[in-house]
């Protein structure tokens, strides 16, 4: 693109007030210009135009003119009532002017050159009477079926759109869809500013509505088809297809509701705002796990939105009370909200819109779909994936933790989700049954969990009347056992363990005894040795004394030899015998 040298004002937009439209058009329809809404019969063109006018009049203070070529004013009023708007009242308040242009070909004869000045005057008159800023022409193509001179008609239409632009009217022109062109009479040639295509498709007996902005001169727009919904509050368009991967992430962890499962997930549970998928065949406890998660969320005081595609809310509440989970209390407190519908009730887009609307209305922190695989009943796998991608993106954007269950079929690989949505999933739990020795037991393991170190063990998944419990499964002697086989094996192991322990104890006692004997022997020897030592000591002492005496005697002897009596020698001898 070449940069404009002069500063050009960007195109001004006129908010339509239609839910979601202003987001995908980044502000609304081009202000003061005509917009063409085209689509087949029953695609919602008139309703679209009607809502544009009503919202304009009530929410943006723009009076409007509704010029209809198909319905009488009375029929129009009835249609408005379906959206909850009182048309006669709005007319009397000067907010809306209607004009029914009645063209009957049988009454009309063309006798030469003419123009549509009459129509201009009527429109002008209606615009002036209300000070209208918005105009709807529904469906101006009726002119083509009423008048045969298309040369004049085309020239006059060109003039009409130009005239509307000149008067600064934000106009909606509706047009019936054609075979090769967007509209049957090629209205898109004249309305060059903005063209919106409404589509109503039936795939496998299920209808979906889609909207696409074909053209928006002077504004960027996504090329996607946006599903939309028509209900008693009008049109809601989903603006969520253009989300990127730049959603916020949280480091906060939330409990799964099962302490042992938390333990398997790094000891803390799931990340807030992450997407969790539980896969499993029928009857493996997916709903129980969902309910436990919902219960845990409500216990934290968080709102939880629960979409049930298989069971009615009451049935879920009853069934979960059998495993000790009281969901009814949370419903009563307004923390838990169920949405129950058969997936085939309406089309995929409708489901997405319903999700979207319910989330907008309830603003949950936790969102559960049980099971998401049932959506395949409402569309093709590719469509389901695209819908889920959009849904998950939207939920991530809002940091809503998402818990999806997926019913896999016996025979197909468990690790293959039917929608192949695994790449969208942050934490993927697998519930599988383990058939062994005439029993079917449930096993749970974590297939993946982004951003945490998680357990690689298969745990036996038990549904007790106090809720879900996980038990380590027996993995000794090279095989994995569950259920009663595990119990038997454990008992056997316990018995042999006991025997082993007793043997060891016996040996320990024997050893102790031996030690004691040894110690006794050592003590005896020591005592003997001590006795001998004592004896020796005494003997040594005696010898020392004797030596001392001997020395003394020798001394005395020497003295006596020098002049002592024999009597003195005797007394010394006496002393010596006394000492012995």
């Amino acid at each position, binding site marked *: 693109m070449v940069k404009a040298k002069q500063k050009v004002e960007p195109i001004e937009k006129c908010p339509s007030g239609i839910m979601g439209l202003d987001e995908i058009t980044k502000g609304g329809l081009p202000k003061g210009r005509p917009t063409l809404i085209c689509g087949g019969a029953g695609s919602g063109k008139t309703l679209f135009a009607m809502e544009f006018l009503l919202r304009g009049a009530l929410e943006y203070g723009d009076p409007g003119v509704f010029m209809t070529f198909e319905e009488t004013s009375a029929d129009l009023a009835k249609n408005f009532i379906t959206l909850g708007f009182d048309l006669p009242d709005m007319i009397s308040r000067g907010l809306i002017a209607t004009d029914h242009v009645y063209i009957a070909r049988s*009454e009309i004869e*063309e006798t030469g050159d*003419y*123009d549509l*000045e009459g129509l201009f005057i009527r429109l002008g*008159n209606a615009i002036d009477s209300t000070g209208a800023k918005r105009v709807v022409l529904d469906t101006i193509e009726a002119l083509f079926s009423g008048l045969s001179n298309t040369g004049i008609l085309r020239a006059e239409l060109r003039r009409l759109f130009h005239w509307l632009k000149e008067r600064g009217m934000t106009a909606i022109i509706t047009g019936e869809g054609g075979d090769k062109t967007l509209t049957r009479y090629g209205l898109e040639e004249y309305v060059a500013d903005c063209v919106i295509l409404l589509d109503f498709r039936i795939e496998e007996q299920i209808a979906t509505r889609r909207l696409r902005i074909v053209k928006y001169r002077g504004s960027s727009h996504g090329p996607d088809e946006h599903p939309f919904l028509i209900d008693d509050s009008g049109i809601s368009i989903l603006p969520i297809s253009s989300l990127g991967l730049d959603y916020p992430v949280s480091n906060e962890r939330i409990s799964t509701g099962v302490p042992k499962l938390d333990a398997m997930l790094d000891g803390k549970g799931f990340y807030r705002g992450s997407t969790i998928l539980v896969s499993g065949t029928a009857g493996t406890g997916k709903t129980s796990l969902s309910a436990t998660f919902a219960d845990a969320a409500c216990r934290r005081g968080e709102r939880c939105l629960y979409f049930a595609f298989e069971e009615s809310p009451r049935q879920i509440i009853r069934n979960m009370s059998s495993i000790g989970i009281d969901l009814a209390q949370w419903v009563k407190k307004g923390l838990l909200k169920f949405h129950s519908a058969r997936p085939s009730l309406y089309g995929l887009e409708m489901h997405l819109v319903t999700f979207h609307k319910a989330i907008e209305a309830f603003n949950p922190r936790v969102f559960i779909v049980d099971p998401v695989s049932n959506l395949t009943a409402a569309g093709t796998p590719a469509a389901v994936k695209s819908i889920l991608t959009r849904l998950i993106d939207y939920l991530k954007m809002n940091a809503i933790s998402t818990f999806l269950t997926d019913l896999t079929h016996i025979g197909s690989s468990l690790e293959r989700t039917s929608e192949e949505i695994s790449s969208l999933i942050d934490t993927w739990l697998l519930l599988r049954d383990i058939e062994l020795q005439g029993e079917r037991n449930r096993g749970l393991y974590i297939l993946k969990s982004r951003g945490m170190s998680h357990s690689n063990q298969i745990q036996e998944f038990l549904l007790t009347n106090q809720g879900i419990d996980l038990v380590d499964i027996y993995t000794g002697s090279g095989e994995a056992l569950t259920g009663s086989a595990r119990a038997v094996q454990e008992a056997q192991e316990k018995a042999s363990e006991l025997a082993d322990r007793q043997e060891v104890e016996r040996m320990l006692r024997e050893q102790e005894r031996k030690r004691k004997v040894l110690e006794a022997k050592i003590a005896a020897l020591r005592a003997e040795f001590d006795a001998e030592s004592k004896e020796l000591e005494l003997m040594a002492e005696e010898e020392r004394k004797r030596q001392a005496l001997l020395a003394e005697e020798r001394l005395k002897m020497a003295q006596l030899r020098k002049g002592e009596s024999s009597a003195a020698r005797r007394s010394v001898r006496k002393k010596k015998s006394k000492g012995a």
Partner: protein
Amino acid sequence: MKRKREKTSTEELTKAAARQDPATYVFRLYVAGMTPKSTQAIANIRKLCKKHLAGRYKLEVIDIYQQPKLTKEEQIIASPTLIKKLPLPLRRFIGDMSDTDKFLVGIDLKPKNS
């Protein structure tokens, strides 16, 4: 709306029947200002009426710029528009009346396939 129109037509019919012979034609010509198309239409219709319906027609010319509200009431979209109010059925002729055959067929003065 249609019913309402028929009602007025019936009233007019009765009035007309009371005062004139049944073959009296009542025309109303709506034009948007004095454009060449308008003057052409007025001239053409006058000429045709004088030639074919001399003495038994009434023609009223109305400028829709002067009476814009009539456009809605009379379901006018094109200009010029000539409405044959009487005799019934009501017929509309749009254009400058240069196609005289269509006009004459339209007011049943000429068989359709001629």
